[in-house]
């Protein structure tokens, strides 16, 4: 009796601790601190919080190692060979067809810079300016970016063990690709035979979008990996609810929440999974990790508070005051349909998966409506994927109501990857039913996926290899500078400074050049920099060309006297590198105004 009482007491204490922890998380994560304070806390202590969570997660995962090993060992040799062939084949193709390059305009560079900071300073932040001070390259101004930093943390760990290299982020994503494929296979293998799981993997993995992300430096593939891993852990927990499985699920969920902004939604679905697990176990399970989980989410809450209070990070277009609106839903839906059912060869979509996946999801919905299955008796994996599907669906709706949620935009397409898990899962479920009617269908579906990849996916990859014009321009500028004499120089860039700073090259945005002119002159005088280069884009003023004008966004104050060094046409724009030959003294305010509106005379025709 006493023992039972003691057991009840422990459970009560744990429940109380959980509630306290949850309340504390809400208070300290969202209410107590101002936006600035929240940002500062994340910047100073965010690294240690997430690193501790990761360490704890890894320790728990190691404890699960016998289970993982058994899954491999019990797999028939033939099935293992087929799996390795498909995963290996898809991975090798993906690694070969895309070069390691920045695919998304800004995100990837920011994540690289954050990982640099985490690696060298253990501080969550992105540098804006950096200089070599007494032989050490140091950031002079660091700000907290809006992006969650789990990806940056993992890359920084690679930097810790191998030294800083830009390529580490690319290599990390390249390795993640087969991991994602493997995780997906093990997820669907829980509900279908090896052959059907293989077909599902072919539908899911033979995707040009995945191949693109496998060669980028973005966080989206990690997000996908974490979504599938958390689904898998949720399915394991529901199959046999116990403390160990719940602990590892909770920590996976905490890390997932810190992978992408919208992944916080998965906290709710994990909660639903836990409730269902308790129902299935017939008892409340509350391990220590569960009690601490809300507190571990505090950094996410703080980061969110910081982001909410810093509108300049929202990247809103002019005349916009909100990121989400219902009015975006309908046009974005049109773009989504165009993306999913695109049969051309320029967008990175997988129409075979869309056709099979939507048909399968439609059939599943119809079956549910007709047969009304008792969900309490459903397979744990289906329940887990179902719960996570709610979050993925909610994410999709959120994305469609986002002002920049056009899925057929090459920058936005990557956000649909978690939804493709649902599509592929739907395909395998339907194939499981059809297999009893005609066992050959799965082979045709697999063949269709591979042929569609070959016929449409890979040509789309070829089209998108060099679609990021800004990355091309930056690479050209860096190549040109590398060909110059190895002197210390400052780059005044019209793009983000990060591309230069990552290479240890001091750089300043053109916008900052004007009010830092005296500082630049000072360091030129003192030999810190031997030269100052300026990168700008010029635009043709009419169809005939002849005369080009500097892009209004790239104008540098007239105090900087420039001498063109080298230029090249890229995508209808002229990209030019110039050298600063003189910085004129600061004029008084009136003169400054007159300089900015003064229009220098056109060069005479003879000079053209």
């Amino acid at each position, binding site marked *: 009796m006493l023992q039972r009482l003691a057991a009840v007491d422990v459970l009560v204490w744990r429940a109380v601790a959980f509630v306290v922890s949850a309340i504390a998380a809400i208070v300290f994560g969202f209410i107590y601190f101002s936006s600035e304070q929240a940002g500062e806390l994340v910047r100073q202590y965010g690294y240690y919080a997430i690193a501790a969570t990761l360490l704890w997660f890894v320790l728990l995962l190691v404890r699960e190692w016998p289970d993982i090993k058994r899954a491999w060992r019990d797999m028939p040799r033939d099935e293992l060979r087929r799996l390795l062939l498909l995963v290996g084949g898809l991975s090798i193709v993906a690694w070969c067809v895309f*070069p390691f390059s920045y695919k998304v305009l800004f995100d990837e560079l920011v994540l690289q810079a954050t990982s640099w900071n985490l690696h060298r300073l253990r501080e969550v932040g992105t540098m804006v300016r950096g200089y070599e001070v007494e032989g050490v390259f140091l950031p002079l101004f660091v700000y907290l970016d809006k992006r969650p930093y789990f990806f940056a943390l993992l890359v920084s760990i690679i930097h810790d063990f191998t030294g800083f290299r830009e390529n580490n982020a690319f290599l990390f994503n390249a390795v993640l690709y087969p991991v994602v494929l493997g995780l997906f296979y093990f997820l669907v293998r829980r509900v279908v035979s090896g052959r059907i799981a293989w077909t599902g993997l072919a539908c899911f993995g033979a995707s040009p979008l995945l191949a693109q992300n496998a060669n980028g430096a973005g966080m989206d593939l990690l997000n996908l990996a974490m979504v599938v891993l958390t689904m898998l852990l949720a399915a394991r927990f529901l199959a046999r609810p116990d403390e160990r499985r719940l602990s590892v699920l909770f920590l996976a969920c905490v890390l997932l929440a810190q992978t992408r902004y919208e992944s916080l939604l998965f906290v709710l679905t994990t909660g639903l999974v836990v409730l269902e697990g308790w129902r299935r176990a017939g008892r409340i399970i509350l391990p220590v990790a569960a009690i601490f989980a809300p507190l571990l989410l505090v950094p996410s809450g703080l980061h969110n508070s910081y982001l909410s209070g810093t509108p300049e990070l929202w990247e809103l277009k002019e005349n916009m005051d909100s990121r989400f609106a219902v009015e975006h839903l309908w046009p974005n839906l049109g773009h989504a349909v165009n993306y999913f059912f695109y049969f051309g060869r320029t967008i990175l979509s997988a129409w075979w998966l869309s056709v099979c996946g939507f048909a399968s999801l439609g059939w599943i919905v119809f079956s549910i409506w007709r047969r009304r299955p008792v969900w309490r008796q459903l397979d744990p994996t289906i329940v887990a994927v179902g719960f996570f599907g709610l979050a993925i669906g909610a994410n999709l709706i959120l994305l469609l109501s986002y002002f920049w949620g056009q899925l057929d935009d090459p920058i936005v397409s990557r956000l649909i990857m978690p939804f493709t898990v649902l599509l592929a899962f739907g395909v395998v479920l339907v194939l499981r039913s059809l297999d009893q009617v005609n066992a050959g269908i799965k082979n045709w579906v697999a063949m269709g996926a591979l042929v569609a990849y070959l016929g449409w996916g890979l040509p789309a990859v*070829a089209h998108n*290899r060099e679609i990021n014009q800004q990355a091309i321009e930056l690479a050209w500028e860096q190549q040109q500078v590398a060909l110059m004499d190895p002197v210390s120089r400052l780059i005044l860039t019209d793009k983000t400074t990060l591309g230069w700073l990552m290479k240890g090259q001091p750089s300043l945005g053109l916008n900052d050049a004007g009010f830092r002119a005296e500082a630049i002159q000072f360091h030129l005088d003192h030999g810190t920099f031997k030269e100052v280069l300026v990168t700008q884009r010029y635009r*043709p003023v009419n169809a*005939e*060309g002849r005369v080009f*004008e500097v892009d209004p966004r790239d104008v540098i104050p007239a105090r900087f006297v420039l001498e063109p060094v080298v230029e090249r*046409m890229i995508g209808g724009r*002229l990209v*030019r590198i110039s050298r600063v030959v003189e910085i004129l003294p600061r004029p008084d305010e009136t003169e400054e105004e007159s300089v900015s509106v003064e229009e220098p005379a056109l060069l005479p025709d003879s000079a053209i």
Partner: protein
Amino acid sequence: MLTSLFKNRTVWLLVLIGALVGLVTRLVLTPNQSFSFVAAGGYWLMLALVILLGRSIVRAGGLQWVREHVSRFDVYVLILVMACTSAWWAHEKPGFKILADEVLLLGTSMGMHLERSSTYPLRASTVQGPMQILDRVLDKRPLLFPFLVTTVHDLTGYRPENAFYFNRGLGILFLLLVYLLGWQAGGNRWAGVFGVLLFAGLPLAAQQSAGSGFELLNLTAVVGLGLAMVAYLRSPDVARLEVLVYTGLALTACRYESVIFLIPMALTALLGWWRSQRIEISGPVIISPLFLSVWLTQNRIFSGDSTAWQMASKEGITAPFSLDYLSPNLVHALAFFFDFNGYQPSSATFAVLGLLALPLFGLWAVRCLREHSQTKADDWAWILLGAGLSVNWAILMLYFWGQFDDRIISRLSLPVHLLLLLAVVVVARTLLKSTRGWQILCGIAAVSFLGQGLPVMAKQAYEIDYSPGVEMEMRRDFLAAQPERDFLFLDNDAVFWITHWIPASSVEKSRKNHEALGYHLRNHSFTNMFVFQSVLVDDQTGERTIDPDDDLGEGFELKTVWEKKVETLLFARISRVVAITHDDEVIPAIDRVAETTGHFSDVEEVDKARVLYLENWIKQLP
């Protein structure tokens, strides 16, 4: 048997589909529709053909046969093959060996890779980032080779060098199949080794393995067909019939004249039915005529083209084929076979052994045909394969340009070499009673490989005096030396530059689009504008003149960047366009464009001007 053949419905269905394919491709489709059909459907038909061929080999137990028959000896053979191909690659630099075939094949593979269009690009631009093909042309060459290279592009990313890598890999497969063929024809594994050594010592094979042409693929497919014929006749069943038919169709898609091998293929099928006294046809065989549609359509499009037989390349030629060409062509063939100074990529040992064995092979074949009831399945296969190869040779000897000692034509002797090998092996089988005899033959072949083949490959004389090849090497060297790839090239081999992602135009088009080039020079659209020209030297006066085909005409001011002697009295020159005169206006090349500031009021205006400029920019591409 004949009655059951006529009564068999599936045979009639096969004939009906064949007739329909012939009718539609030869009569129904308009020229435009024919072009669209090949351009849009070529890739997909090749994909289906390769998939069905692979499926048929698996279903017929091809992989299982390999698993069951591989022995330690075969592993040594694999090592030997690797060593031989390594020797090839050590001496043969990868490059475009035969022009313009190889560049156009690469261009078609580029079109297939980027757009799934079986055409090669004539004009292309990267102004908007990804390569955009602006003009496409359908090539007369069959599509299997570009398709396979496209698949390499698809799976590993586009590289012009993929065609070289593909042929290098194919070299290994080819020698392995030669080993199999020799082994099966000679009844001894050492016969296979002999075949490998004989071909390894043939510089022509090495040259083709380092190029980007379709000759080696064609030859590999012929060997494959021979093996499929043997396999089918040994045990005529549906699965092996599929292998036979689809190997034959793949061979048809390799080279124009390989369609003649459909006759021995069909005869083999009939023979198989006759020997097994049953007619079995499967679905894939019934639909097989569909795969001839591309060849038939291409043939129709280009048979109406007066330049298709390239008669203009020789003076005084009125007919592409004639008996009058036979005698001189045979003399040229002998000159090719028995060249000892290294100016021909031939092997004298190969020729001596082969030409000695060939008449004996003919006599053996006649004897087999006379005693046909006792002729073994294998022997039927070798006779039919030999007949196909002989007809192939005969056609070449009747062709006005069938001179094997011509640099461009020598590669066409590869199937003849296969015929010679087959003859040697079959004749030797009847003469040699022990393995020792085969080993002696292998020794002779090995000595020939080391004593003649390798030195000839090392000397490279047969490539150095092929001026188009030297010019192409010059282009590649120039390109490799450029740190940037943002220039425009004016060159009659414009496809070469486009396949290397460089905007290019032919000299003739440049001449016509004088004004457009001025536009680009004025706007600094390209960092540089280069032109490639051949320079002829007068042997009496020493005066140098630009080849009229490469002459840009009035109004172009050029500055020589690189000039190289290609052969006696011929130079190749790369020049930079430094000014263009148009309507009395001199437009000089500039290092930077003129500029102004303060014109635009907002970003929208910028984008509007850019769109206008881009549209005009593309219109002005020469």
